[in-house]
C-alpha cells in the first residue's frame, strides 16, 4: 500500500482501500527487543521463568555480558528492523559485575534518548531498568508495563519513506507519483 507523506488528505481510492484493509483493524501487538546483562537482568528473567511468572510475549531478549556492551547502534537497528520498543536491563548502580559497565550504559542511553526524541521517537519506547538477579518479579512487571504502554502508543511508524527508499532502485515510480503539493488553494500572482 503506497504511503503518502506530507499530505493531510488521501486520494479517494486510497482512502477507500484503507477502509477495507483488515490489517488496520487487528489489535496491535507490540514487539519489544530487550537487551539484558547476563549477571543481573538475564538471571532475573530466568528466575521469573523458574517462578512461572507470566508476562507479555512481546519481549524478545538479546543477552549481553554487560549493559556496558550496549551500543546505541543496536537500539537504532532494533527500531529499524521492526521493534516498537527497546528495553535495556542492567545491574543496579554499584553492583555491576564488571564494576562500571552499567554507568556507561546510563550515559549512552541518556544521550540517545535525547537524540531519539528529536527524531520523534517517544520516550516510552526506550527504557532502561536496573534489575538485580533476584528481581524476577520486576522483570515481569516492567515487561508487562512496557507492552501495555506500547500497545496504547501504537506501532513505531518509521515512515515508509525509510523502507521505500530501498525499493527506490526497483520501484521508484511509486515515489514519483507523489505530487509536490495539493491542499492549499494556490494562486499564481
Amino acid at each position, binding site marked *: 500500500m503506497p504511503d503518502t507523506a*506530507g499530505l493531510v488528505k488521501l486520494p479517494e481510492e486510497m482512502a477507500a482501500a484503507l477502509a477495507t484493509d483488515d490489517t488496520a483493524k487487528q489489535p496491535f501487538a507490540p514487539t519489544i527487543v530487550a537487551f539484558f546483562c547476563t549477571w543481573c537482568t538475564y538471571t532475573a528473567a530466568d528466575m521469573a521463568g523458574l517462578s512461572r511468572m507470566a508476562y507479555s510475549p512481546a519481549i524478545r531478549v538479546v543477552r549481553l555480558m554487560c549493559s556496558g556492551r550496549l551500543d*546505541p547502534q543496536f537500539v537504532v537497528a532494533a527500531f529499524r528492523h521492526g521493534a516498537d520498543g527497546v528495553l535495556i536491563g542492567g545491574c543496579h548502580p554499584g553492583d555491576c559485575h564488571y564494576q562500571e559497565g552499567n554507568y556507561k550504559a546510563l550515559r549512552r542511553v541518556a544521550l540517545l534518548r535525547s537524540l531519539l526524541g528529536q527524531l520523534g521517537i517517544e520516550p516510552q519506547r526506550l527504557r532502561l531498568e536496573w534489575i538485580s538477579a533476584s528481581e524476577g518479579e520486576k522483570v515481569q512487571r516492567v515487561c508487562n508495563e512496557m507492552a501495555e504502554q506500547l500497545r496504547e502508543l501504537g506501532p513505531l511508524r518509521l515512515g515508509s519513506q525509510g523502507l521505500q527508499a530501498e525499493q527506490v532502485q526497483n520501484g521508484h515510480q511509486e515515489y514519483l507519483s507523489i505530487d509536490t503539493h495539493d491542499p492549499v488553494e494556490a494562486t499564481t*500572482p
Partner: protein
Amino acid sequence: MTKPKVAFYWCASCGGCEEAVVDLDEDLLAATSLVDVVFWPVALDFKREDVEALEDGELVASFINGAVRTSEQEEMVALLRRKSQAVVAFGSCAVLGGIPGLANLYDREAILSTVYREAPSLEVPATTFPMKQTRVDEGELSLPTLWSSVCTLDDVIDVDYYLPGCAPPPRLIWAALSALVEGRLPEKGAVLAPDVALCSECPLSATKPEKLSVSRFRRPHEFLADPELCLLAQGLVCLGPATRAGCEAVCIAGNMPCTGCMGPTTRVTDYGAKALSGIASLLAADDDADITARTAEIVDPVGTFYRYSLPASLLRQRVGETVGNGAIK
C-alpha cells in the same frame, strides 16, 4: 589517444564540491590534461542532450555530488549511471545525505510552508506557492517532484565508489582521479579515504590524556579554544574519534572541532549512534543530575551526531504519526 571522459554533476548541494575540484589548484591543470570533462553544469556549457547523446558506458566515471530529493535529480543520476562505467558518490551529500539530509527532520509540507510562507524575510504575498504545472505566456512549465525525504545517491542508483567530505579534500580528489586514469581503483564499493579515524592524523593527538573524562561540554562560540590542546579534552564535541581520516584534520587546524563530514569507517553501521556512544562514554558524572546536565549541554543531538549522515542512518528521518485517515503526517 583520446582522454578518458568524465562528468561532474550536482544534485541537492551547495556547490562546495565543485569548488573543491577547483581547489586542486595547479593539479587542476594536470587533471584537465588527463581527462576530458564532458559535462559539468557549474563550469561548462554542456547540456543534458549532450549526455543523452553519449553511448552507454562511454563515460569512464561520473562524479556526482549532492543528495537526491527531486525527480529531476533522480532522472539525471539515472542517466549518468547508464552512460558511465563507474559512478563516484562525490562529497558527503551524495555519500551520506549531507547537510540537506537534515531536512528529514521535517515533513515536506512544513518545509514548503516555511520557505514560501513563513520565513520572516519573505515579502511576497502568502499565496505564492510552487506548483507542479504553471501556465505562462510562453507555454506550460513544470517543476520536478519534491520527494518526501532526502536520499543518498546509492539509494537511487548503483554507486561504485564513495568519496566523502564536505567538501572532499583536494588531495583525495586528486588521488581518486589519478587512480581512475591509471586503472588503479580498488574493488567496487570502496570508500576512497583511509579506513581509520581522524585522531590518527590529528596534530593534537599527542596532547590528549590517556584517560579522558569530560566534565562539561562547550560549544565553539562559548570560548576561545587552546589550539595546542586536544579539543575534545577541552569539552568541545569533536567527532574526530568517530570520523574517517583523510582531510588532514583541516578543521582542527582552524581551531574548530571535527563535525564528522568524512563519515564512518567501514566497521560502523550507523555513524551518529556510534559517535554518540563514543562521546557519551566520556561523560564525567557522579549522579543522575550530572548526567542530565551533560546531556543538556549537547543541545542538538541530531544536528551534532547526524549532521551529514541522517539519510544514510538506520532511522533515516523523523518518524511519523498516524493521523485519522491513515495518511502519515
